[in-house]
């Protein structure tokens, strides 16, 4: 331990000897670490917020009224794999909707930690004034729906209960309201491609924060949706909320196995977004990795220079009885010191950058999500500090190790003979 202090002291004098180069390397590490912390907070903040919104706002699992593989048509059932090709076949028309939905809901509700709500969703054209907008209408059972989504919390005007007292009531998203220029209590004409138009009254407004949802969704009573879509008694989704969201994927699979209908977990439904996150993260990690790599080259560079310049000192130390391992340690410590100081400075830089990102006001409200705050949504985590700092230390030590090994192998006799 005491000798470690001696080695560190020698390492420090070497770095002090190359002050400017050391400073540049420290800065390189600091920038790498600092940016990785700020970027991680930014990315994870955005992603976490997005995922939270999805998990909260949407059901965890949805059973649809179709199948993952299209059902076999009677003709292929008869002819099987025959090479005869028949074209112009009309598929057997099945009644849409989940068959025996009531029984399915009852069966699902026996599972523990589960809330279930039936839904009939379909396309709808909302007309108000001169504007027509094609949206998706969701027929709900309000009492059940609030148990599977956070729709009740997302209500900013009116209420879902008003749907019960106004059978022709409709609850619309904030963005949609704005687009149509609608206001609470006003009448709007609703028509589906299959049913006849109905005049409906706006009894509520919701806002999830997900722009796509807020601009393109409306809720009506399930019964009313069945009339609008001309599908009496039909439902085409069973929405499920789980006490433990981590079970979503497994639950979806087991429901699909039980009923045959296509059943998606929230991960599957949002897989395109989640895969964008993967791309985002890879870009982030490669950027930060590149910064740290450059910093590591800088460290390698100073330590190599120091080894070259201090060959004489190395020979003295070895003739004095320092072991090869001692000499190696001295130079590895130099790398570690640059890494450590750089990581600490990087932590400070990362902290400041994160704070800065949290307060700078962002222009506009565009983008995929609406933010609850004016700055970026940030996810601050000590793990980011540990990971980036640890990575920097590993890179620094590795960068120091190569020249350190060379230093340890120097032959003192050669250097002493070289003289002067």
């Amino acid at each position, binding site marked *: 331990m005491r000798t470690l202090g*001696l080695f560190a002291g020698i390492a420090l*004098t070497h770095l002090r000897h190359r002050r400017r180069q050391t400073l540049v390397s420290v800065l390189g590490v600091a920038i790498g670490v600092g940016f990785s912390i700020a970027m991680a907070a930014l990315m994870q903040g955005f992603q976490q917020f997005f995922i939270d919104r999805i998990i909260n706002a949407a059901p965890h699992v949805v059973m649809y009224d179709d199948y993952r593989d299209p059902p076999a048509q009677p003709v292929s059932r008869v002819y099987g794999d025959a090479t005869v090709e028949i074209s112009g076949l009309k598929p057997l028309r099945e009644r849409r909707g989940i068959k025996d939905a009531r029984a399915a809901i009852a069966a699902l509700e026996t599972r523990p930690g589960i809330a279930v709500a039936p839904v009939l969703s379909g396309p709808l054209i909302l007309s108000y004034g001169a504007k027509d907008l094609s949206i998706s209408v969701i027929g709900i059972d309000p009492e059940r729906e609030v148990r599977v989504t956070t729709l009740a919390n997302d209500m900013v005007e009116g209420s879902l209960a008003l749907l019960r007292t106004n059978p022709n009531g409709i609850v619309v998203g904030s963005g949609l309201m704005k687009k149509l220029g609608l206001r609470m209590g006003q009448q709007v004409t609703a028509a589906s491609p299959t049913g006849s138009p109905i005049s409906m009254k706006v009894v509520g407004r919701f806002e999830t924060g997900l722009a796509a949802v807020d601009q393109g969704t409306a809720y009506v009573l399930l019964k009313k949706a069945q009339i609008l879509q001309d599908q009496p008694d039909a439902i085409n989704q069973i929405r499920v909320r789980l006490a433990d969201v981590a079970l979503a994927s497994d639950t979806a699979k087991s429901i699909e196995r039980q009923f045959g209908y296509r059943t998606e977990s929230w991960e599957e439904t949002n897989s395109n977004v989640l895969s964008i996150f993967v791309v985002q993260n890879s870009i982030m990690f490669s950027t930060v990795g590149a910064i740290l790599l450059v910093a590591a080259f800088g460290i390698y560079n100073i330590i190599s220079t120091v080894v070259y310049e201090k060959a004489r000192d190395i020979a*003295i130390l*070895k*003739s*004095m009885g320092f072991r090869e*391992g001692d000499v190696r340690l001295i130079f590895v410590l130099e790398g570690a010191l640059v890494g450590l100081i750089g990581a600490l400075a990087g932590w400070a830089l990362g902290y400041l950058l994160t704070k800065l990102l949290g307060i700078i006001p962002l222009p506009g409200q565009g983008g995929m999500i609406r933010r609850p705050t004016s700055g970026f949504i940030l996810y601050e985590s000590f793990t980011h500090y540990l990971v980036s700092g640890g990575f920097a230390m590993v890179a620094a030590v590795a960068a120091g190790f190569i020249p350190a090994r060379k230093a340890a192998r120097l032959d003192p006799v050669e250097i*002493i003979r070289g003289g002067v």
Partner: protein
Amino acid sequence: MAASERPAVEAIGVTRIIEGAVSTTLVQDINLDIPKGQFAVITGPSGSGKSSLLYILGLLDRPTKGSVRLDGRETAGLDAEALADLRLTQLGFVFQFHFLLPEFSALENVALPLRRLGRDSDTTILARAQSLLEEFGLGGMSHKRPDQLSGGERQRVALARALVNKPLVVLADEPTGNLDSRNSELVFDLFSRLAKAGQTIVAVTHDMELAKRADRRIRMVDGRVVADEH
């Protein structure tokens, strides 16, 4: 043989050949023992192998043939770490060009081997280093860096450092090669004094006048010992 009668250092049939396009023989068939407390000098023309022999005796270089014993202990089979440890505890070097660490003060330079040994507290180490510097007339210079010292002062600092771990043998390669005659005499006076107190010293020198102060003169020519006068 009693411990005190064992030679401090012995060379037994030592030959060192450097293999290359033309192999060079640095030293050849050296048989030598240096008793404890002896002050021996190695003389000889340039290129005769004096430094080469000193590096081998000091375990900085290994003989191609033959072996070196330190206090009766065979060193041929030892690995690099064991040799380093022996250099730390049993040997002290002084080279022609004051090999001091330039960023460290005289005191810190002298303290280095003791610190590497790591046996004593820092206060004890610094006290010992300081007393050695005082013994060599450098008491007031301890906080100066090497570039703030004269050549003679640096060489005495180097000697203090060589002695700080109380080595069995001090090996000096032309320690006065860079010094004027006054400073050279100062260094050799120190050697004589230390040898009288029981310190074994092997020094290489070109200066025949200084060589006369030693207990023993070993003369080398072409890598061989040609004269050994006690």
